[in-house]
C-alpha cells in the first residue's frame, strides 16, 4: 500500500470518527442542553440516566479525532489547536463540568446539586457551541505561515463562526430530543417531541442564514461549487431528509425514526462540507497531502489501530449499545 492510499485511509477514518462523534456525543450534549430546559426532577434524573452508560465512550471519539489528527495530520492538529486556544479552553472546561456532573450529582446533597445541574447543561451547551464555532472558523479561513498558525486569539469571534456555533447547538439539541423520543417515558417523551420540533426549526433557520451569509462573504466559493455539481447532491438529500423529519415529528409515538432522520441530516451536511472543500483540510491553507504524516507513521497506525483495533471498537460499541437498548437504566 502506498503513501496516497494510506492518506486516503486515514482521511476516511477521520471523517468516520467526526461523524460518529457528532452523532453519539451529539445526542449526549443535546440531552445535556435540554436538561436545562426541564425543571422536573424526575425528568432530569431520567434524562441523565438515558445517557449515563454511554457518554464516556462517546466523548472518547473526540479524543480519537484529536489523536488521529496528531498522528496522521500533525500540521492540522498543531495549527487548529493553536488558532482556537481560547475556544479549546472553553471546550475542555465545558467537558469537565459536563463529565463530573454524572457522579457529583449523585453524591452531592441538596445544597450543591443545583450547581452540578447547572454545570451539566451549561457545560453541554458550551461544548456544542465551541465545536460549531470551530467549524465556522475553518470555513472562514485560518492564516498559516511556515506550517504554524499566524493569527490572533479571537479569529473565532466573528458572526459566521458564532452563527455556526448556534446552529450546531440546535442540531445537537435536536439529536438529544430524538434520543429521548426513543428512550424517554411518557411525559418526557411528549416534551421531547416539542423540543425536537423547535430545535429542528432553529437548525433549519440557522443553516439557511449561514448559507446566504456564505454566498455573500465568499462569492468565489459559490463559483467553485458550480464546478462541482455532484457536491449539490448533499444539500438536496439534506432538504428531503429534513422534510421527512418534520413529518415524523407530527406523531407522538415512541419511534427511532426521528433520530435516524436527524442522523442522516448530519451525514448529508458533513458530506457537503467534505465534497465542497476537498482536498483542503483547512480551507485555503492546508491540504490533506500537506498535512499528512510520513508513510512510516501512517503505515504503523494502519496495521494495528486501523485494520485491527478500529473494527473491534465498532463491534464492542455496538454490542454495548444493544445491552442498554431497552428499559430504564438503573444505577449501581
Amino acid at each position, binding site marked *: 500500500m502506498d503513501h496516497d492510499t494510506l492518506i486516503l485511509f486515514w482521511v476516511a477514518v477521520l471523517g468516520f470518527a467526526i461523524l460518529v462523534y457528532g452523532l453519539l456525543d451529539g445526542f449526549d450534549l443535546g440531552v445535556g442542553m435540554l436538561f436545562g430546559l426541564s425543571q422536573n426532577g424526575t425528568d432530569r434524573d431520567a434524562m441523565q440516566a438515558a445517557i*449515563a*452508560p454511554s457518554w*464516556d465512550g462517546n*466523548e*472518547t471519539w*473526540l*479524543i*480519537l479525532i*484529536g*489523536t488521529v*489528527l*496528531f*498522528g*496522521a495530520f*500533525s*500540521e492540522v*492538529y*498543531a*495549527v487548529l*489547536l*493553536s*488558532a482556537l*486556544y*481560547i475556544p*479549546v*479552553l472553553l471546550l*475542555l*472546561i465545558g*467537558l*469537565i*463540568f459536563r*463529565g*463530573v456532573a454524572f*457522579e*457529583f450529582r*449523585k453524591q452531592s446533597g441538596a445544597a450543591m446539586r443545583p450547581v452540578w445541574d447547572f454545570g451539566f447543561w451549561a457545560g453541554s451547551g458550551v461544548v456544542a457551541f465551541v465545536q460549531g464555532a470551530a467549524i465556522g472558523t475553518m470555513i472562514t479561513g485560518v492564516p498559516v505561515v511556515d*506550517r*504554524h*498558525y499566524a*493569527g490572533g*486569539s479571537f479569529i473565532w469571534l466573528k458572526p459566521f463562526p458564532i452563527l455556526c456555533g448556534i446552529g450546531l447547538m440546535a442540531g445537537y439539541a435536536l439529536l438529544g430530543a430524538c434520543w429521548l423520543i426513543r428512550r424517554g417515558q411518557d411525559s418526557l417523551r411528549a416534551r421531547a417531541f416539542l423540543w425536537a420540533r423547535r430545535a429542528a426549526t432553529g437548525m433549519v433557520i440557522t443553516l439557511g442564514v449561514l448559507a446566504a451569509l456564505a454566498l455573500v462573504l465568499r462569492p468565489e466559493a459559490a463559483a467553485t461549487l458550480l464546478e462541482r455539481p455532484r457536491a449539490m447532491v448533499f444539500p438536496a438529500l439534506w432538504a428531503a431528509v429534513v422534510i421527512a423529519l418534520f413529518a415524523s415529528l407530527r406523531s407522538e409515538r415512541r419511534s427511532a425514526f426521528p433520530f435516524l432522520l436527524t442522523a442522516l441530516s448530519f451525514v448529508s451536511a458533513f458530506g457537503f462540507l467534505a465534497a465542497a472543500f476537498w482536498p483542503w483540510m483547512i480551507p485555503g491553507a492546508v491540504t490533506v497531502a500537506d498535512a499528512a*504524516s*510520513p508513510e*512510516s*507513521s501512517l503505515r*504503523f*497506525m494502519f496495521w*494495528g*489501530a486501523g485494520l485491527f*483495533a*478500529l473494527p473491534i*471498537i465498532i463491534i*464492542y460499541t455496538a454490542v*454495548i449499545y444493544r*445491552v*442498554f437498548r431497552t428499559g430504564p*437504566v*438503573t*444505577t*449501581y
Partner: protein
Amino acid sequence: MAEFDATLLSRIQFAFVIAFHIIFPAFTIGLAAWLATIEAAHFFTGRPVYRRVFDFWLRVFSIAFGMGVVTGVVMAFQFGTNWAGLAERAGSIQGPLLGYETFTAFMMEATFLGVVLFGRNRVAPWFYLLACICVSLGTLLSSFWILANNSWMQVPVGHKLVDGRIVPDDWLQIVLGQVQLVRWPHMVLACFLTTGMSVVATASWWLLRGRHRDEALVSMRWSLGLMAVLIPAQMFVGHLAGDIVHRFQPAKFAALEARFETQQPASEVLIALPDPDTGKNLYAIEIPRLGSLIASGTLDSREVGLNTFPPQDRPPVLLPFFTFRIMVGMGFVLLGIAWVGVALAWRGALERARWFQILGLICFPAGFVAVLAGWFTAEVGRQPWAIYGILRTADAVTPSLVTMDVALSLLAYVAVYGIVYSFGLTYIFRLLRDGPRDFAAPGDGTAKRPMSLAAATAPGRE
C-alpha cells in the same frame, strides 16, 4: 531570574494539569486491577463478602475514573494548544503512539465501564467479569502507550531527521525499546502500590472505628500480601530505571545526585541543600564511594558532574534532587508497611494492632507522593530539553502563543480544578469513611446506609 513568558507559563500549566491528572490514573490503574481480581474471586467462590468489597470500591472507582477522564481530555489537547512546535516536529512519532492509546485503551475502558457501572443485571456473570477485565486491560494499555511516548522523549531512538522534521524509522525500537521496557513496569508497579496503600489505609480506618470488620480484613490481607511482593520488585525495577538515566541522561543523573563536579571515586550525597549558584552542597551528609557503587556498581568509578555540561544544557538541580529523595523515601515507607503488615497478618494480629492501623491510615498518601515525586524527577531532570538532545523546550512551544492567553488559561484551569478537586475528593472521602453498605438494591443510588453495628461486629466468616 526566569521571565514569565508564554513558555514558562505553558510549562507551569502543563505541570499543573498533568500532576493533577496523574493522581487519578495512578489510583485507578491499580483499582481497576483490584476490582477485576475481587470480581473474579466472587465469580469463582460466590462469597458475599467479595461482592460487598467490590461494590464499595466500584463506587470509589466511578468517581476517581470520572475525574481521571475529564482531566485526561485536557491532556489530549495540550500538545496542540501550547506545544505546537513539538506537535509539528515530532507529531509523526508521538501522534501515532497517542493514537494507539486511544484506539486500544481509551475506547475499551470507557465502553466497558458502562457495563461495569450499569450493566450488572443486564449481562451474564461471565460477561460482567469480562467487562471488568477489559476495563483493567484498558487502563494498563493506556499506561503502556503513555510511557512509550514519554520514554521516547527521554531517550529518543528509532527515528531519523528529514528536512528538520523527526520521522519514525524503526517502530519496534520506539515502542519496545529497552528504556520503555524498564519505565513502563516501573510506572505500573507504582500504580499498584499506590492503590494497595490506599486500600490498606481505608481498611485501617474502618478497623480503628470498629466497622466493616470482614471487608476490612479481606481488603487488608489481599493488598498487604500483594504489596509485600511488589515493593521489592519495584525497588529492583527502579534501580534499572536509575541505570538508564545514568547511561542515557548523564546531566539528569548528575542533577538528581547534586554532583556539581566530576568525582572519582564518587561520594553519595544522602541529603543536603544544594546551591546551584555556587555549585556547593550545604549541610551535606555524604558517604564516600557510595556514589560510585550506586551509579556503576564499583567502589572507584568516575562519575560525571554538572560541570561537564555547558550551562545552557544543565537541568535544574533543586527539584530533581529533592523529588528523587522523596520518591525513594516513600518506597521505603511502603516496604515497611507491607512487610510489617504481612508479619502481623501471619500471626493473626492485624485486628488487634491498633498502632499499625494508625500507621496505615497516616501513610495513605505515600504512593501518590512517590508517583508525583518520581515524575517531577523525570520531567524536570530532562530540561532544558522537550525531546532529550533534539528539541529544546523553548522551541517546542506554540509560536503564535500570547502570554496573556496562557495566563488566562492557567488561571482558569487552577480555578476549575480547584472546584472539581475539592468536591470530588470530598465525595471520595465520604465514601471511604462510610465504607461498604449492605447489598444495594438496584436503583438505590443515593442512600447511604452503613452496616448496622451488630452486623459489623458479628464474628466473620473468615
